[in-house]
């Protein structure tokens, strides 16, 4: 076979830093373009993100953001149903799409020579989608299967779903991204169309191309494809600020399982101002201190020393469009209860609130953050995801370095301070899993999940 083809596949294992050079453009229609260069291999990741997730949904129509994501593969005025995937596949591409609370994203990973075709196809379905009743009727069934698979039959998913539904009252974060089952049952193709017409506009989208590309060439392609689509006025987004919680909320979930489990959620701030905010960075460090791999205090003390838990985790995502929630999760050890693990997890936070954090422990956490920055360079895809997430949440991708710097600057006193201020009873929601035997009879589902 021709040597020319071989060259296409040759890996460029060249010396020199892989630290991605990043270039930004703004198309005249308001669509932002970000290009991250990585010339190690002749591949490219092409992504389009829409600033439309389940946070933008309204009551009765939960799950529509995700349903529309599925419908985006069902054909346009130009290409028939399934044609998008067939063409990407024939180009050697891999593709998928995802929906979260904050955004909906579509991506293809391909040889760089296929980028132009992917951009043509992706920009086509941004404005040309055909939403037929027939395709909708089939796909909504697929989505209901997805909900069963993802949530209905998984005790832990039901627990998390109840945690959000209880911790949040006004914020749309209370609804699951996949949607409540009854909302899916009642959904119509018109709901999908309304969503598409409302949010799928270039000025509500972000293009990221990462890999073995030249920024000027990507820009030229972007202008010929996405750049031709007109901007559209976007509807106003209601703030839907979560009102302050005024007292402990405690909920039980009964579901088929063997191990009990407890999840606790504390209302905390998310990052809003990279320069002025302090608490989100301190909370980030606190969560790492508790649960970053085997050296975290939860594993060290709760799982290994006290044997009160068989697993214990902490989680906090400071980058989000909606309100922040600091999570603690544990599975009690044999002979211990969820009350024991709940108490033990809160005792660890109380201890940090009283004693602060030793410098060597703080340094260990930061070392791992710094090393992870280097390791991250191995995956251009992960870098593109991270950049897009920052942009879509209202930050700039270039804030990345500054955010890490701020995390590295967190002091022991700041960790102690957030441990003191955010972990009282009044902003806490606790959900406990009460395992039910897996019998011939189905365990009763928790209220609200089914009609």
């Amino acid at each position: 076979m021709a040597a020319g083809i071989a060259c296409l596949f040759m890996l460029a294992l060249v010396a020199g830093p892989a630290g991605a050079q990043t270039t930004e453009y703004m198309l005249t229609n308001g669509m932002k373009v970000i290009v991250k260069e990585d010339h190690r291999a002749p591949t490219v990741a092409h992504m389009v993100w829409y600033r439309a997730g389940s946070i933008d949904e309204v009551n009765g129509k939960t799950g529509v953001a995700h349903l529309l994501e599925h419908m985006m593969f069902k054909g346009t005025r130009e290409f028939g149903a399934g044609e998008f995937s067939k063409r990407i596949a024939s180009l050697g591409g891999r593709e998928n799409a995802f929906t979260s609370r904050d955004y909906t994203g579509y991506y293809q990973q391909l040889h760089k020579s296929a980028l132009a075709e992917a951009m043509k196809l992706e920009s086509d379905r941004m404005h040309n989608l055909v939403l037929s009743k027939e395709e909708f009727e089939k796909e909504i069934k697929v989505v209901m299967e997805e909900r069963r698979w993802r949530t209905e039959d998984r005790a832990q998913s039901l627990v998390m779903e109840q945690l959000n539904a209880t911790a949040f009252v006004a914020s749309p974060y209370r609804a699951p991204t996949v949607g409540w089952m009854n909302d899916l049952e009642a959904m119509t193709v018109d709901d999908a169309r309304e969503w598409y017409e409302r949010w799928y506009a270039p000025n509500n989208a972000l293009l990221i191309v990462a890999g073995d590309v030249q920024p000027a060439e990507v820009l030229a392609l972007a202008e010929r494809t996405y750049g031709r689509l007109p901007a559209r006025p976007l509807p106003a987004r209601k703030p839907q600020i979560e009102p302050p919680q005024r007292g402990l909320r405690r909920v039980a979930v009964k579901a088929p399982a063997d191990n009990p489990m407890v999840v606790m959620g504390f209302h905390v701030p998310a990052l809003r101002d990279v320069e002025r905010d302090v608490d989100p960075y301190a909370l980030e460090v606190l969560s790492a201190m508790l649960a970053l791999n085997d050296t975290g205090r939860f594993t060290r003390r709760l799982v290994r020393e006290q044997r009160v838990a068989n697993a214990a985790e902490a989680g906090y995502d400071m980058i989000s469009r909606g309100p922040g929630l600091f999570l603690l999760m544990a599975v009690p050890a044999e002979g211990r209860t969820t009350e024991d693990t709940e108490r033990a997890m809160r005792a660890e936070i109380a201890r940090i609130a009283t004693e602060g954090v030793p410098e060597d422990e703080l340094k260990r956490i930061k070392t791992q953050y710094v090393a992870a920055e280097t390791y991250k360079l191995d995956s251009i895809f992960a870098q593109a995801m991270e950049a897009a997430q920052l942009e879509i949440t209202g930050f700039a991708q270039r804030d990345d370095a500054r955010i890490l710097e701020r995390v590295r600057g967190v002091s022991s006193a700041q960790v102690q301070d957030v441990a003191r201020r955010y972990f009282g009873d009044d902003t806490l929601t606790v959900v406990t899993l009460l395992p039910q035997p897996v019998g011939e009879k189905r365990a009763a589902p928790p209220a609200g999940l089914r009609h």
Partner: protein
Amino acid sequence: MLITRFPFPSVSRLLAFLMFAVLTLAAMPARAVLPIEHWTAPSGARVYFVRAPAIPMVDIAVVFDAGARLDPPAKSGLASLVAGMLDAGVPGMDEEAIARTLADIGAQRGASATDDRLTVTLRSLTSEAELAAALRVTERTLSAPTFPAAVLTRERERILQALREAQTKPETLAQQAFSSGLYGSHPYGRYATEASVQALQVADLTDFHKRHFSAARAVVAIIGDIDRARAEAIAQQLTGQLPKGQAAPVLPAVVRPSGGERRIAHPASQSHLLIGTPGIAWGDPDQFALLVGNYVLGGGGFVSRLYGEVREKRGLAYSVYSYFIPNLQPGPFVISLQTQREQTDTALAVVRETLTRFLRDGPTEAEVQAAKSNLVGGFPLRIDSNRKILDNLANIGFNRLPLDYLERWPDRVQAVTVEQIRAAFARHLKPESLVTVVVGAGAQPAR
């Protein structure tokens, strides 16, 4: 939480799937596609190295022929537990000290076991102090793990609890029945149970380590920003303290199962369906025909026949796919899906009809062309990061594939014909040997 359009198989499966699907290349270039250097360390371990100077880091995998298939009967779960407890202690260091040492230098270490392999991975910065410390600890965990009794007691409790939880899940029950159905008493058919894990003692771990952790059984894969001399030193350091050892014991052959359908009642809202049979081992001459054919049947993401018939046309499932896992001995061929319990038999009939038609008529010429263009065109995606290349190196080393395996791959994919696919599927997927497992609706077979 991120939810995706299509669920990919669980990580370990996915890995195996990729390793099979992975090794593709379009043409035969004068230069190697991937400049793999290979040698045998003085210890006797076989080493596979690629220099990648772009990022100041190194990835290492030490792969032992010490997978779960070598678990003694009635002690299933041993290989996994050994992997999990290598870092539970070495002379002079407890688990806490080991974890801290690695964290203090930002190194990431992992260990796990599959049916065939026991793998320890290390990712470290290449700055000398960091790398030296990471290697020192990792070497100790390979050659001198102490398996402290107190840690064993704790880990056993944790595993037992996780097993009891897993036992309530339809996917676990399905997987267990499927393994037994395919492999019977062969080691590939065994799985950890409460009794087998209860039985594990320190002596079992020590003995397993002594018998199976040897240089002769080790493959070291390395990629990163180091030169050949450093790579040689690393490979020797990591394996030099191990006994020379011998090849793994020969296991009994995999016997074709008698097939049939097994139903297990479960109240979940979805039934879990698995259909399959033992497939192929590495090096099987039909490997490429099966790879291309399976892409058409159920391997090709959103464009396979199973996806089209089950999901796209009828909305019967969110997740449906098929794959082969080549192992040292014939690994499974699997079709997997989940569907609302009330429509279990409808979905099963569609899958069977799709498979039967595929086995009878084979793929069309157009389908085979589309499969080849995806597999060959998508090749660079399979080696475009250090992590992916590391997996390929480990795979080539562990399965003793030739060094030009990658270069020859595309030609071998391109050479596959419709007729070869039909013949290969007829050879390996005998309808009378297909095992069907349904966990969910109905305790009796439908027919």
